[in-house]
């Protein structure tokens, strides 16, 4: 994992960023059994941050969230394969490539792939995108804002961020633990 994190920070390319219409991804979930659509930006993101433990330590979860401009998640789970078109992810990938984002991870296995994109400016991470496409599930995470190595460590580690899984009986995606740092 450390290798991955170091690798994330070696990609340094700065390009002017223009907005991507995250809503254009909603068509992916037309046939979804379960959907998670999260758009947190501006005041809503500040509001969410205000509810986190008020730890002034910049390494805290709140310290990380306060530096972000927006967090967008689209995650869809399907009953069977072939219920979404992976081609619908192409506009996002093209946009990221055009905006100077760097694809730092690209893992392909049979009919699935996972890509991690990083946007950097002046030697610092300014955004992170994850695109994970499996036969019965597709997930896109787009984080806009400054991220440190520690922040990315939090995103993959145990800084009080709960594991998110689809429960077998549940209809909604629920955190297994809401415990915060």
């Amino acid at each position: 994992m450390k290798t991955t994190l170091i690798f994330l920070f070696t990609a340094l390319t700065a390009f002017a960023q223009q907005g991507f219409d995250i809503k254009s991804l909603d068509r992916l979930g037309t046939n979804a059994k379960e959907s998670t659509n999260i758009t947190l930006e501006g005041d809503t993101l500040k509001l969410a941050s205000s509810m986190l433990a008020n730890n002034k330590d910049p390494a805290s979860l709140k310290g990380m969230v306060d530096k972000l401009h927006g967090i967008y998640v689209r995650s869809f789970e399907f009953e069977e394969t072939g219920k979404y078109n992976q081609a619908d992810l192409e506009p996002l990938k093209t946009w990221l490539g055009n905006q100077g984002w760097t694809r730092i991870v690209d893992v392909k296995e049979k009919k699935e792939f996972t890509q991690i994109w990083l946007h950097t400016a002046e030697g610092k991470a300014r955004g992170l995108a994850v695109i994970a496409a499996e036969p019965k599930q597709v997930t896109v995470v787009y984080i806009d804002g400054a991220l440190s190595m520690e922040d990315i460590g939090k995103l993959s580690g145990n800084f009080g961020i709960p594991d998110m899984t689809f429960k077998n009986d549940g209809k909604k995606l629920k955190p297994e633990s809401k415990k915060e740092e």
Partner: protein
Amino acid sequence: MNPDEFDLEDQLRQALQPKRAPAGFASKVMARTRAKQPWHQNWNGAITLAMVAGLVMAVVIPVTLASRRQEDRAIEARNQLITALGITKIQIRQVNEKISQRIKRNRPAL
């Protein structure tokens, strides 16, 4: 004085002419009505009460409701944030595992 020499009834009317009420009599009565008046019969009190009630309705209740709505919104936003970060964490962890497995698979046997 012989009553036969004057009209007794006229003299009685004169003797029993109404006396002027003491100074401030009416003011005292009005003051006592205000003091004795129950709040719902006291016009001034009722108006004041209505104004206070109106103020409560117009300011306090909306502020409380707005505050509660804001709190609900904040809790909802926090839950969404935790969910978003949780999904991100899972995706990064999964890709890490995939990379680790590939490295293991590709590592030459010693």
